[in-house]
């Protein structure tokens, strides 16, 4: 099977702080991967490296055997809700259409094919009736579904979701998971979540990001969580790195 994502000895530092240390990851096409790790542990940096938004200081990243920058249009991204300006004046349909903005004319009528796909996705997400509503009027679950529709508009092969089910009701969470599971085998999915129970039961493989990037077995995740290792402060990890560097 083709590798969707390949990372070889990838390190990334910001100023003096090492965020990702020598990551080696191989994710096959169609895999559903859960990403766990403490806050500030480097999960979002890990995702940004894959999306080509930042460049590693060391190592090589390949997306379908190409550089992340040349393949990033093939990645749909659902950001963390806390990073979104909820007051921004945009309707749900306008938000979804941003998912294919490079294919849309900057002015005038929107291409009918793209508009039709946006309508279909909104219907699939159960929010077609809200298309003309300002996005700041949506509930958490509706907002997340609108972002998933945006990520899917250009029909990407890789879907990356950063905590898509945080602070939403169980019904909306189930709907999102059912949808993601329906893509199993067709799309490569990377999902960051703090909900370890969901991660353990739903995804194929688990990666923990806490400066080092490691594959984990479900039982290992439970063990680490129980032992409190999941919450080892990053400051300590950075100190260890600096000490290692000096010696």
């Amino acid at each position, binding site marked *: 099977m083709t590798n969707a994502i390949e990372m070889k000895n990838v390190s990334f530092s910001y100023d003096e702080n090492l965020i990702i240390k020598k990551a080696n990851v191989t994710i096959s096409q169609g895999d559903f991967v859960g990403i766990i790790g403490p806050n500030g542990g480097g999960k979002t940096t890990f995702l940004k490296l894959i999306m*080509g938004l930042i460049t590693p200081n060391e190592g090589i990243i390949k997306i379908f055997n190409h550089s992340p920058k040349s393949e990033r249009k093939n990645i749909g991204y659902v950001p963390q809700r806390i990073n979104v300006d909820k007051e921004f004046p945009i309707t749900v349909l306008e938000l979804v259409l941003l998912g294919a903005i490079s294919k849309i004319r900057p002015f005038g009528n929107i291409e009918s094919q793209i508009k039709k796909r946006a309508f279909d996705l909104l219907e699939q997400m159960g929010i077609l009736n809200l298309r003309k509503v300002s996005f700041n009027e949506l509930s958490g679950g509706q907002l997340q579904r609108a972002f998933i529709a945006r990520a899917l508009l250009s029909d990407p092969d890789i879907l990356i979701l950063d905590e898509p089910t945080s602070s939403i009701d169980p019904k909306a969470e189930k709907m999102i998971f059912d949808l993601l599971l329906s893509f199993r085998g067709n799309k490569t999915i990377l999902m960051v979540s703090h909900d370890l129970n969901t991660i353990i039961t739903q995804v194929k493989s688990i990666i923990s990001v806490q400066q080092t990037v490691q594959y984990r077995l479900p039982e290992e995740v439970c063990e680490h969580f129980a032992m409190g290792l999941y919450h080892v402060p990053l400051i300590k990890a950075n100190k260890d790195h600096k000490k290692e560097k000096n010696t």
Partner: protein
Amino acid sequence: MMETLHALSSNPFLQIALLGGLLASIASGVMGSFVVIKRIASLSGSIAHSILGGIGFFYWLKYNHGQTWADPIYGAFLAGIISAFIIGWVHLRYKQKEDAAIAAIWSTGMAIGVIFISLIKGYKADFTSFLFGNILLLSTKHLLFLGVLDLVILLTTFFLYRYFVAICFDEEQSTMQDLPVTFLYFTLLGLISLSIVLLLQVIGIILVIALLTIPPTIAALFTGRLIKIMISSILLAIIFNTLGILFAYSLDIPPGATVAIICALSYVIVLIGKRFNCLKKRTFFSIF
């Protein structure tokens, strides 16, 4: 008041001032909406204040070296574009240090202006009109310049509207979609600089942020659509400018400060109205 109404039909200075206010309102309504939704008011304030450097330099060229072509408004235009590029570059490369860079450009630009002004020999009275604005001194040549800048702002915004919305909402998503984010961001900042230059004549460097941000902020309280915010902001700015100029003329007080006070008072009244549910969302701007 009757005297002011009579002056409306007979005083060419007042007529030019009102026309200048109208042109400035178009630019402030359109670009001010982007400033408010992208939350870059302090960045725009930095551009506005750093413009003093260009004004001071061109004054110095004109009065100390006899360069008659060196109109200070062209200096403002040049300094605005340079500041926008520096700030844009800092934003894209060193996002975490953006605040400090904004403050540095703010004070450095003003410092350059102050030094050049201090070197000018003789009377410097009209320099204060750039600090506090004096639309009643607007000439037809300036009016033409403002008209051209307005046209540039409107045409560029029309052709790049969707892309501007995309980068204002989510720069990372726009980058992933391979939009030319750097070019678009610089263009947006360049247009904001142009609108600030337009507003300088009306309200002055120190008060420009009031006219740029208050009308869109009021409009955003009533609508969740950017295009409606823009149209409403233009209308509000026209009302604020016209009232400000007429009050200033009849009471013989500075027009820039009068416009800024009217903007601020209107915002307070709207906030109080909203607080006590006198003004409901979607009713005030439902005409669009």
